[in-house]
């Protein structure tokens, strides 16, 4: 088995506030293999964007990494000084954010931003960089790339801008792309285009992708594996097909059930009562226990770690017995 590209080990992120320290990410661990597309899905407040931000090193203060490690190709990147991290960002890790309007500098042409990124990280001359930039624009499906490279961001539509942002992320040939809700601000028909584009160019360049989103449909279309997050913890992680069709964690079951389906009629959607706990009110034991239909005593007392269940891993005591049986 090849060594993982990205390893996140027991990551903890906290926010000191005047009312005490809030733990926003509580012992997150996962790996991303080279060239793999990992989806990170969860609802608002689950901590998925924070995970992405911590990996890129763009955690907004006062948030800070309080524990754990992030390793890129075996090397720790969570404790690098600013200058070192800046080199890693862009060259090894590319980023695609949600709002294409604010991801591009409106005062510079698209070409200039691309060339700047390329020459910063790769040993190419200006003209070589420009040729590569045109090539990237063509790859991301921008028509008339030779002319459009000298246009300003406001002259592109929303979908086109997001393609430029993807081109920018891929410019320095990074090994990992962190995409935080890249299609949420786009129309449905454009979403489909951007998703397939992301998938295609990443496979072509051999870049791994960490796709953060709340949209399960996008995950189903794009990812190889998916991690389901809840209240700053990973509830379940595994191959996409298994997590969606054979979910092991009750939260994942509830989540899948509450999504209206395109292919069947239901009178009522499955509904999970209550809401995700706020950061200052996370229950002891398993964070999901107040809302779980299958809760029992152990859930309220002890926090479960990820344990193997068939093809996935779920943090749920329900599967402890199965785990023990399998071990025996």
């Amino acid at each position, binding site marked *: 088995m090849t060594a993982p590209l990205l390893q996140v080990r027991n990551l903890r992120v906290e926010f000191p506030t005047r009312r005490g320290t809030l733990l926003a990410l509580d012992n997150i661990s996962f790996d991303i293999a080279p060239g793999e597309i990992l989806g990170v899905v969860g*609802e*608002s407040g689950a901590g998925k964007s924070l995970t992405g931000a911590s990996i890129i090193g763009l955690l907004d203060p006062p948030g800070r990494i309080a524990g754990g490690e992030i390793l890129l190709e075996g090397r720790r990147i969570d404790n690098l000084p600013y200058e070192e991290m800046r080199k890693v960002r862009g060259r090894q890790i590319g980023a695609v954010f949600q709002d294409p309007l604010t991801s591009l500098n409106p005062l510079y042409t698209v070409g200039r931003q691309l060339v700047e990124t390329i020459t910063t990280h790769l040993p190419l001359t200006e003209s070589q960089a420009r040729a590569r930039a045109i090539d990237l624009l063509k790859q991301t499906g921008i028509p008339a790339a030779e002319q459009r490279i000298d246009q300003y961001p406001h002259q592109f*539509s929303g*979908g*086109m801008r997001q393609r430029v942002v993807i081109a920018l992320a891929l410019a320095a040939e990074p090994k990992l792309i962190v995409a935080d809700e890249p299609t949420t601000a786009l*129309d*449905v*028909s*454009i*979403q*489909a*285009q951007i*998703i397939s584009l992301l998938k295609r160019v990443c496979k072509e360049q051999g870049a791994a992708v960490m796709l953060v989103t*709340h*949209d*399960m*449909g*996008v*995950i*189903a*279309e*794009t990812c190889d594996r998916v991690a389901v997050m809840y209240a700053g913890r990973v509830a379940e992680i595994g191959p996409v097909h298994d997590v*969606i069709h054979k979910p092991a964690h009750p939260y994942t079951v*509830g*989540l*899948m*059930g*509450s*999504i*209206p*389906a*395109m*292919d*069947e*009629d*239901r*009178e*009522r*959607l*499955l*509904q*999970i*009562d209550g*809401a995700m706990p706020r950061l200052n009110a996370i229950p002891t034991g398993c964070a999901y226990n107040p809302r779980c239909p299958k809760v029992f005593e152990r859930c309220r007392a002890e926090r479960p770690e990820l344990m193997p269940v068939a093809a996935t891993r779920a943090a749920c005591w329900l599967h402890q017995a199965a785990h023990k049986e399998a071990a025996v």
Partner: protein
Amino acid sequence: MSHALVEVQDLAKIFDVSPPWLNRVVERKPKAFVHAVDGVSFSIEKGKTLALVGESGCGKSTVARLLVGLYKPTQGQVRFDGTDTAQTLAGPGGQALRRRMQMIFQDPYASLNPRWKVQDIIAEPLLEHGLISKPEALKARVAELLRSVGLSPVDAEKFPHQFSGGQRQRISIARALATQPEFLVCDEPTSALDVSVQAQVLNIMKDLQRQQGLTYLFISHNLAVVRHVADQVGVMYLGRLVEVADKAQLFSAPRHPYTRMLLDAIPDIHMSGRARTPVQGEVPNPLNPPSGCSFHPRCPHANARCKSERPALREFQGVRVACHAVEEARI
């Protein structure tokens, strides 16, 4: 055949987005207009839900606002229970009409006044229409409304920022139902909510519809949600209705090429990996719509007639479609 509660005929709304007069004179720029809604006709029967779907710029939100009187139609008519709404709202019967139709908005964070208590927010329509004036009766009615949307009466003393998005949307629903309206226009009520919260709100809305016989106009861009709530579905593109059909019909056998493209494009967790026709192009600029059928630049079935002649919404086997190719039985 039940009497259609809401009837819309050739509704149009044109916005003047011209540059200021001085710029027009000096720079010789022409006046610019956006046909946000360009001749839309449909009807909704009592107790049913019509969903309007489409992407950005299609005019569905404008239709919603035209129906409740936030905008005045440039052309065409909206009839509620037989009477013209634009005229009634401007006249003395306006308040009585407003009591019967209300609206729920998309953004749960902006649809409640952050400085008002929930009690005051929900009580406002009751006070405005003079339905209840005694404080105890008012409190009781607000408590009743809160309970009907799954919240507790003690929540009346809190402020909106103390609630989550889903709870705020429920407060909006409670406010909208205060005057016991018959018709609710819902502008993307769950688009800003998480999936599990969306499920809660959609279930409540369906329950309330059943209990109170409400009629809904449901605006959304999410076809899966629409499939769950609607009886009839209307698909809009650049201000025009391109297809109107019963839900089952639309989802099993879409006729218009745009509807087919939309259904194909949606990433769906249960149907991933299916073969699809690739999607082409983007929604054009509404300031400069294509001639003839506005979908023709993206349509795989467009011919010369599509480029020059705008198709009318015609009925084919129980479905209304605006497409030359369908009319000519080419697809």
